[in-house]
């Protein structure tokens, strides 16, 4: 096996395009899944079952079906219903939605881990419910769940190659394209492998810093 640095160099423009797509998908996917997951978790705590039931059913359904199926569904079926998004937007929405059903469970656990005494103190001080959530419960819950959310960022990163299936070419897609044109597989695949490791590590580092900040 020969390692060809020229191939690495030739792959760079394609690689950087792919990297931009991967990072964008990861950042937006994380943003959507973190926000939507929290919304689900809060809706599941409303007293009316007419809210809890539909939310429970929808999120269970999304969690129990493969991301790839959801990508295809959103990409091919939504336009038939008159809703056309770009391939990238579709991919980001699918990843964010899919992972929100996991982060929802993380938030739930985090919220339940806040001691009952915190709710009681808030009641004793007569704090309004919304204020109790915002100032007392959520800050404590979120701090607890940052490490678990970090794991899902890495899982999400490793799912971004699925976007290939709906024509979005992230890192793996570009590597495949390059390989088919140049019949060189080792270099592009190695480059993106290393890139995945580096992005994961940086994301972990970022989240650990955030965690330390929050814990203080």
């Amino acid at each position, binding site marked *: 096996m020969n390692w060809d640095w020229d191939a690495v160099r030739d792959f760079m423009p394609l690689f950087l395009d792919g990297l931009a797509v991967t990072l964008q998908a990861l950042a937006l996917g994380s943003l959507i899944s973190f926000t939507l997951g929290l919304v689900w978790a809060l809706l599941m705590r409303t007293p009316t079952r007419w809210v809890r039931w539909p939310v429970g059913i929808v999120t269970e359904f999304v969690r129990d079906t493969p991301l790839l199926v959801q990508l295809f569904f959103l990409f091919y079926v939504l336009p038939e219903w008159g809703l056309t998004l770009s391939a990238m937007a579709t991919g980001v929405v699918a990843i964010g939605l899919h992972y929100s059903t996991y982060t929802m469970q993380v938030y739930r656990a985090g919220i339940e881990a806040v001691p009952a*005494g915190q709710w*009681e*103190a808030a009641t*004793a001080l007569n704090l*309004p419910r919304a204020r109790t959530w915002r*100032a*007392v419960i959520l800050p*404590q819950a979120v701090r607890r769940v940052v490490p678990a959310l970090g794991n899902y960022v890495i899982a999400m990163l490793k799912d971004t190659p699925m976007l290939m299936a709906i024509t979005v070419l992230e890192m793996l897609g570009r590597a495949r394209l390059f390989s088919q044109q140049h019949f060189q597989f080792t270099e592009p695949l190695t480059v993106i492998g290393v890139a995945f490791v580096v992005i994961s590590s940086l994301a972990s580092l970022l989240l650990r810093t955030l965690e330390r900040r929050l814990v203080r």
Partner: protein
Amino acid sequence: MSVEFSNVTKRFGDNTVLDHLDFSVKPGKHVTLIGPSGSGKTTILRMLMTLTEPDEGTITVDGERLFPASERQVRAVRRKIGMVFQQFNLFPNMSVLRNIAEAPVTVLGLSKDEAEARARELLELVGLADKCDARPSRLSGGQQQRVAIARALAMRPQVLLLDEVTSALDPELVAGVLDLLRDIARSTDITMLCVTHEMNFARDISDQVLMFDAGRIVESGSPEKIFNDPEQERTREFLGAVL
């Protein structure tokens, strides 16, 4: 402000913690609830703070009925009542100062400056003026409980509920907290309901002592009577065990 329990029963499963209880507290009085663990004392405070509901009977605060009551009524009653918990229950994500100033701002509508000035005064009172910016986790248990007392007082309650406030403290920290509460009892006209196992403290601050056992009041009277000359065998037995 007066508090009245009439025919109140509370069960947890098969366990009756309060059994057709009647009692009342007159404005400005300091009432101490003593008795063995599980005799329903804490439940009384928790019901007044609306943390738990009675199964039967009525509770009125200043003539206003608590259960059932509209959200507005409940909030109006809570506004007059403050509570200090066994486990302090300070908000760990806020500084000491904000723990105290949070509710005066969001509930009473004080400006941030007013609320913080009031919080600083109270921290002075409880001897922790230098801890404004500390997180609760940096404080000792005794200091945390003094902050919790300041936090309750910041709402200017007419009734203060003290739920075994020294039970979770290291022995050498108990005296500081009790001295502070003695001061407050002496220098204010706040109505106090106090569940405690500190009998000397109960003797010092109480106008009336209620002896509980198995969800009923066994005996009640002045501290002199209860501690020096109890009528009931059960009271003698209990006091013999704890004193």
